[in-house]
């Protein structure tokens, strides 16, 4: 199988979110994959050269300075056809959902979203992916190539570094990049904290945090002593306590950090869908019956307003010791 990995970029820089897609390619198409990175004056391309790709293709063009699907999809479709690949792969994200599905449409290709396993047997491609809000796992058979796939980051992990460097080749954008869609602005609010989907530690808060200030003080405060990212439940986001992009769960982000601390999070099925692949889960909740305790490695039945400051203090002091 020959694979084209589409690097996640914001038009300016390559994102580490690309790594699980490279890990997929290493496992399923060893020595037979190419990485494509699209943008303008793209930085961080060298990150892609350490994993045994046959080549890293870079397309730099002023019209590609922002990641607009209408502009990126034709570039992907063009190089997929030129290379004659069997699969086009990226890590699941809003970028890849937007751009790859459009590329699949241009190629009239079948697509599988957010896959967790992939096998090729008897000429058939078989993959598993979560369905029904991750309440179930579905097995899917696919016919026809190329197959377009987004891969669920936590299921594929990080690629193995290789001794040899992949060559970087600057290639042209296809002649007609459509320019009807226009990028206006991006309003982010990570506040200098690590990216939620990449962080080693995630601290999430729920609706009982009352207001944005309380949320920031307790959840943000705990995340900061651990060098972690901040997450939130849908209820907290809906209540205006936390910004949308912090939502963890089926309609938000999927995270799988080494440590996930759920503070005043009840643990709805939709929230669990976004974090249950975390290595170690800690739950702090006043309700001993909260479903979050059924998935937590360590549960503390307590009032967050009492124990979170204690926890922050203890971790702070220990750091100094």
């Amino acid at each position, binding site marked *: 199988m020959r694979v084209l990995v589409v690097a996640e970029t914001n038009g300016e820089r390559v994102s580490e979110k690309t790594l699980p897609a490279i890990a997929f390619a290493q496992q399923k198409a060893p020595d037979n994959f190419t990485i494509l990175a699209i943008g303008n004056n793209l930085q961080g391309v060298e990150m892609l050269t350490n994993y045994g790709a046959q080549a890293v293709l870079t397309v730099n063009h002023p019209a590609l300075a922002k990641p607009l*699907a*209408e502009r990126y999809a034709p570039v992907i479709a063009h190089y997929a056809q030129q290379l004659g690949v069997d699969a086009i792969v990226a890590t699941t*994200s*809003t*970028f890849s959902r*937007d751009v790859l*599905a*459009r590329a*699949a*449409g*241009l190629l009239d*290709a*079948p*697509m*599988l*979203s957010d896959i967790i396993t992939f096998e090729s047997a008897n000429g058939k491609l078989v993959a598993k992916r*979560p*369905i*029904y*809000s991750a*309440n*179930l*796992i*579905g*097995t*899917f*058979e*696919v*016919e026809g190539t190329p197959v377009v796939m987004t891969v669920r980051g936590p299921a594929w992990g990080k690629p193995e570094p290789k001794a040899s460097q992949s060559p970087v080749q600057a290639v042209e954008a296809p002649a007609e990049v*459509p320019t009807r*869609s*226009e*990028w206006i*602005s*991006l*309003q*982010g*609010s*990570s506040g200098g904290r690590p990216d939620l*989907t990449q962080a080693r*530690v995630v601290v999430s808060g729920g609706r009982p945090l009352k207001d944005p200030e309380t949320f920031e003080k307790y959840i943000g405060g705990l995340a900061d002593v651990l060098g972690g990212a901040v997450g939130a439940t849908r209820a907290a986001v809906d209540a205006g306590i936390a910004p*949308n*992009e912090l939502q963890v769960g*089926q309609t938000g*982000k999927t995270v799988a950090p*080494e*440590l996930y601390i759920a503070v005043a999070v009840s643990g709805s099925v939709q929230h669990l869908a976004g974090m249950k692949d975390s290595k*170690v889960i*800690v739950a702090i909740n006043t309700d001993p019956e909260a479903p979050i*305790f*059924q*998935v*937590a490695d*360590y*549960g*503390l*039945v*307590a009032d967050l307003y009492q124990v979170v400051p*204690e926890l922050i203090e*203890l971790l702070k002091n220990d750091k100094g010791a």
Partner: protein
Amino acid sequence: MKILVSVKRVPDPYAKITPNAAGTDINRDGLQMAVNPFDEIALEEAIRLKEAGKATEVVAVSIGGAECQEQLRTALAMGADRAILVQTDALLDAPSIAKILAAVFQREQPQLMLMGKQAIDMDENQVGQMLAARLNLPQATFASKITVENGSALVERETDNGIETIRVPLPAIITADLRLNQPRYVALTGIVRARSKPLETITPEQLGVSPQARVRLTHVESPPARKAGKRVSDVRELVRLLREEARVI
């Protein structure tokens, strides 16, 4: 301005979904069905655009068996002006749905097509983008705010990196995210009025398309359960275990 909205029939979002005994599909016995919640949000947005004087007609379209009339009647009761059912019992995947919707789009020639970002059954999040590609139209996915002005739409999109704003000239395909709006409850008068609104039934063949699914669901299972761990008595014990047992801090 005419707006086309696609409406998928899916299990009620609050229903308990389990695999059937053979593991070939979900257990559908007595399962309540509903309009896909993201499509409901798309429909609400279309109706609001009409109420604001920005749109003149809202057309709802669904694809599937005769039972999808139920969801189209809900759409009409919410405020759609008419409905189209593309009736088929064929197995369809996202590219096939996009092909059928593209044919409906070409017949109806709307200035805007709104749909949910994904359906809550298969959670694929593909059809809107595939449709936009097939029609060679601009797309704006995961919309949390839409402003229609002077032949274009200013769309705020919910991305992993924050709220991104883009402008797309119309006609365009826009997919709705959770926070675009809060759909209205269907009023009794709406249900009564919906009965007299036109609901047309056509077949894919009449639209000149005969799509075949290349992606097939063959097995359904429950995910492996994570087992509960231990309760700790205080913060000190928690920190000690995280450090010495779990070794994550």
